[in-house]
């Protein structure tokens, strides 16, 4: 993998917040794609911080169309490349959870169903972070957002996170994976694997957000790891009708280790008010661990060396 900045396809100098999970993810995604790629970024943080007019950190062809049409625009690019006989060029969408789970889900479903050779990567920071932490269907249960804030009557979001990976799986596409910015080698490997598919693939990258989640900027990777090791965010790969690989949890941590450092969950720790909610989230994590068999070291897809 290239070391020096001149060899990075995602150059430094962009305007992301310090500690931005998306910037880390994007850099690793481009390490995996190499130069022979066209990137589509629907509206979101990534587009905003990388494309102030006349400046660009993108050393690969890149287009920002609209908020809700990343998958459709990628479909058109892929069709054009097919027409030109340039199918060696790969088409990759990097879109946020708002563009993916909410406003763009119709077009994404269309792209999956038509079977375009497109790798769709969702950087999932679990709310509308570009506009300042508004509720999305990707927002997890009990997280406080500005449009569904925790208050005397409500403990933050009152519904669980939409299971977007299962929706992708239900389309019967070639490859579905979840990964995390905290495990860059896992992210890299999964993107490389997706690029070998003939049809569509979907990768969801759990992406901590310093400003939106409310934690110190040096803790992005730590927070990301705690999410996975608590069992709240299972990392897996799905292919040919079944889940083929899980990221096993090395050392299970209680969900409070993950939740407590984040401002979006601070209402759960004020006095005794969040006790029931915390129990509910712990039960959710335990269910994930049981359902997916996440406990134990064997069969781990990542190694000790795979730390950021």
């Amino acid at each position, binding site marked *: 993998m290239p070391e020096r900045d001149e060899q990075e396809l995602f150059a430094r100098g962009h305007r992301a917040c310090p500690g931005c999970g998306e910037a880390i993810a994007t850099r690793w995604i481009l390490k995996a794609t190499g*130069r*022979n*790629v*066209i990137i*589509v970024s629907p509206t979101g943080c990534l*587009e*905003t911080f990388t*494309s*102030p*007019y*006349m400046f*660009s950190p*993108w*050393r*690969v*062809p*890149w*287009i*920002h*169309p*609209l908020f*809700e*049409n990343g998958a*459709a*625009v*990628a*479909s*058109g*690019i*892929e*069709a*054009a*490349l*097919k*027409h*030109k006989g340039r199918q060696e*060029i790969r088409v990759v969408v990097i879109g946020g959870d708002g563009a993916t789970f909410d406003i763009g889900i*119709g*077009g994404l*479903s*269309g792209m999956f*169903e*038509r079977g375009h050779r497109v790798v769709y990567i969702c950087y999932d920071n679990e709310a509308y972070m570009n506009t300042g932490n508004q509720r999305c269907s990707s927002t997890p249960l009990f997280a406080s957002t500005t449009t569904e804030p925790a208050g005397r009557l409500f403990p933050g979001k009152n519904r669980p996170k939409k299971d977007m990976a299962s929706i992708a799986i239900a389309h019967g596409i070639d490859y579905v994976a979840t990964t995390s910015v905290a495990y860059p080698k896992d992210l890299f490997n999964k993107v490389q694997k997706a690029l070998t598919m003939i049809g569509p693939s979907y990768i969801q990258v759990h992406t901590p957000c310093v400003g939106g989640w409310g934690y110190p900027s040096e803790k992005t990777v730590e927070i990301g790891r705690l999410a996975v090791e608590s069992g709240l965010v299972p990392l897996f790969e799905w292919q040919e009708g079944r889940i083929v690989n899980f990221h096993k949890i090395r050392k299970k941590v209680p969900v409070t280790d993950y939740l407590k450092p984040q401002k979006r969950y601070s209402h759960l720790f004020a006095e005794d008010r969040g006790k029931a909610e915390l129990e509910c989230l712990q039960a959710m994590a335990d269910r994930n661990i049981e359902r997916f068999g996440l406990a134990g070291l064997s069969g781990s897809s990542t190694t000790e060396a795979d730390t950021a």
Partner: protein
Amino acid sequence: MKKAEILEGSMAVALAVKSCKPGVISAYPISPQTHIVEYLAKMVASGELKSEYVVADSEFSAASIIYGASAAGVRSYTASSSQGLLLMTEVIYNAAGTRLPMVFTGVNRAISAPISIQVDHQDTLSLRDSGLIQFYVENGQEAYDAHIQAFRLAEDSEILLPTMICMDGWVLTHGYEPVELIDQELIDTFLSPYHPIHYLDPENPLTFGSYAEDDILMELKYMIQAAMDQAKKKIVEIASEFHRITGHSGMRLVETYRTEGAEVLLMGMGSMVGTMKEAVDRMREDGIAVGLIKVCCYRPFPSEAIFESCNGARAVAVLDQGFSMGSEGPLSLDVKAALSNLKTPAVFSFITGLAGREVTIETIQRITSTVRKGIDSDQIIRGSQWVDLNQSIL
């Protein structure tokens, strides 16, 4: 020149599009656009047309798909109507801003509510501010010829704007008319393969769709308007080359009909103009000094041509098949702006033919007589007159 064939309007359009060899076609079905995209799908399925045909999940996606194809440097096409065009609107603005020369057929149909599948111009008129070049055609032959010229105009390196041929639903898409086709060889001479300067290419990585603020956004928007102005010259040049190569009449900004010495000028767009011409003939026979201006190109609006054609007349009657709610007929507003430096003619605005309500020769005659009476009174004219409203319903 070849002998005319009797063709359905939709088939004439499909044949024109096929002869322009788009690399990517994408569409979503909506009446009355459907026949066009069905014919194209058949041509692709049979191997007659070597295009990627992407069946979209919505009109929004169809427009987005051809946007992506165009950004990747490939000639691209879609067609829609009514609600479908409204759903495409966000993409159309974006395509103009990104300077992508996609070609559309806008098959005219009323806008809901109330829902109706019948023809009027409300759908395409609502796109007037987007940066989309728009032509309105009168018959099948014009529809055929205009599509071929549209690709050439849209893709011109000095223009690079999305372009739409607007044609009346049912009347033109489903009616059968004689249409003279052009040999493929001649079309190939007129329209070269599309080789854009800027497109998504790993060998020359460019950034498209940047974020802009007050230091640059105004300039970028102004450049769209500058291209629109330039398009007025280009249209004339391209039309003359089209005529030279194919022998067919090229597209025009406006067409004048029996305007010599006319006291009253009627003005309209689309298939209704055929009836208006017939009405003008009858009124001329009766000694009424009336003529007609057909607005062929609506965006860019041919203000100069309209100014020249109307100068000398006492009144202009603009027939709109759509409305700007809270204001007036959209075409009449543009005509008033174009003539604002002239004391005469007076401009009268009429709203007609919504949801396909028939506009007959008699309707036109009545409108003309209203205008002739209006000129002689000193009343100030404001707003639009809605023609033949059924008062018992209001």
